[in-house]
């Protein structure tokens, strides 16, 4: 029997979808080894209420630490607490998300515990007591299978690769105390700036509409926004050329130096498909490309392509999607 640790990420008092993904991935590992899933949840007063959702997705135990010092992300105190719980809990593995928070947290904990960590894993499995993680490298052109022989083995999973699965467990809440005083951390978040309330983030959106230079101007991005709105569950992304030109913020950039996404549907609008862009989206489940150049490399990775003027095609597609989604 080997128990698995899952870090349940919260932001602004709410669980993030990636928290359910880590619990789902941990549940799969625990079921394979006959163990339990113990999730750690930190936040300000009231965060305990979110433990139920973790239990519904497979957490046998939810360790909760409520402290005002956890109102914002608190890297030092969160890392100290997670390292202590992982270290003393006798876990076989600890699962994080490869989110901004998980990218920050997991390596600190791995260094504290002097154990192995593989980030951005697209699948993890236990093989004869060794955790194997499949990890895209070289911008996704090579997939490595990496063995983490240490116990615990630390792994972070790529957002959207493990869909949250309902798998109700007891979710027994255990209150845990911080190790380091969260109010005494050297690094402090003084403010969190939410970009567009209620908007879906690229990492969480099942549909992504991304725009490139083919849109010809920043103003024309409105047709991309309109198409995203017609879907209702879509986020807007962009190529590096577009963010470099300031048409969109850098945080919208999908590609080698930006976000790595794998939505159910990716619609590339006016994107030629430079290798650096393909690096960020080639694992999308279905890809649609709309571009005027029929020889553009994007059509080589797209499941469906339409050749022509994006300014004519995209509004027509928006109208058709709106019609198709009537009644949703």
């Amino acid at each position: 029997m080997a128990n698995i640790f899952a870090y349940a990420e919260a932001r602004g008092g709410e669980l993030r979808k990636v928290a359910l993904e880590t619990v789902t991935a941990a549940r799969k590992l625990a079921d394979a080894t006959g163990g339990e899933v113990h999730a750690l949840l930190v936040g300000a007063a009231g965060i305990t209420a979110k433990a139920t959702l973790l239990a519904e997705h497979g957490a046998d135990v939810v360790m909760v630490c409520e402290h005002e010092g956890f109102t914002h992300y608190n890297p030092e105190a969160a890392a100290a607490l997670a390292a202590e719980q992982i270290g003393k809990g006798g876990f076989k593995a600890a699962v994080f998300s490869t989110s901004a928070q998980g990218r920050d947290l997991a390596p600190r904990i791995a260094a504290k515990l002097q154990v192995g960590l593989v980030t951005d894993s697209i699948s993890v499995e236990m093989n004869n007591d060794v955790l194997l993680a499949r990890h895209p490298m070289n911008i996704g052109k090579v997939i490595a299978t990496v063995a983490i022989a240490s116990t615990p083995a630390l792994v972070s999973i790529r957002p959207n690769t493990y869909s949250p699965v309902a798998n109700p467990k007891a979710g027994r809440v255990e209150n845990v105390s911080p190790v380091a005083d969260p109010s005494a951390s050297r690094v402090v978040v003084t403010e969190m700036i939410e970009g567009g309330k209620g908007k879906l983030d690229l990492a969480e959106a099942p549909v992504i509409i991304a725009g490139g230079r083919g849109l010809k101007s920043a103003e024309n991005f409105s047709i991309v926004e309109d198409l995203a709105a017609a879907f209702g569950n879509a986020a807007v992304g962009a190529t590096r050329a577009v963010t470099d030109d300031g048409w969109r913020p850098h945080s919208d950039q999908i590609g080698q130096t930006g976000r790595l996404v794998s939505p159910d549907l990716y619609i590339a609008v006016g994107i030629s498909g430079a290798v650096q862009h393909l690096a960020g989206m080639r694992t999308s489940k279905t890809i649609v490309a709309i571009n005027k150049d029929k020889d553009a490399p994007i059509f080589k990775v797209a499941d469906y392509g339409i050749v022509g003027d994006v300014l004519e095609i995209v509004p027509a597609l928006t109208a058709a999607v709106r019609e198709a989604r009537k009644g949703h």
Partner: protein
Amino acid sequence: MKIAVCVKRVPDMDVRFRIAGDGASLDETGIKFDLNDFDAWAVEAALQLKEKAGDGEVVVISLGPTQAQETIRKTLSMGADRGIHLQTDRIPFDGFAIATALAAELRDGGYDLILFGKLSPDSSNGITGPMVAELLDLPCVTAVSGLEVSNGRGTAKRELEGAQEMMEFPLPAVLTIDEGLNKARYPSLKGIMAAKKKPLESKPASLGDPKVKIEKLELPPDRAGGRIVGEGAAAVPELIRLLQTEAKVL
């Protein structure tokens, strides 16, 4: 202000990679290497901080085979003051092994800031910076896209999914640099000439024991792709039909 920047030479990604005979490493024959983009932004950040402070030193450290000296030389031509090359036959995949060697070099360096690029696209782990911070017990901010430093303290903007965090931290500290903080300068001819005379020390890297190991490498299958539904707005109804009935995403 004394600033260290840790940089890595990474392969040109615009190639078709080949797996070596051992099945667990890449055949590097004919592949060109250059300074990692994220690391170039880290070097630029260090140069700008030094210029603003009016004095200081920018030391660039790179771990790798002898060719890593070319990468260091490039940063010297951008304006860094001196280089330290930590010699090893091959750059390990494992970030902990690398972080251990870098931490040993950085520990007694008296640096006010230690900068890293957020990620290198070859190993794609993005863990070396925060691991070094932990090994040296220094404050650390990752994915920095905005930065101000004065009077022994810093403020940084950090990129999250759909949000940003404003962070405050004391020096000395470790930062990993994201895209968007700056645009890296190109080496000038004068810079290239000056770089040839700048000190570049080479010594063996004290790598840590690797904690993870690549069992095998695979090239993912090409996407089937390539199906053109039609031309112009007239193709939209057929695309909608395919998204509904075949891809089942609408």
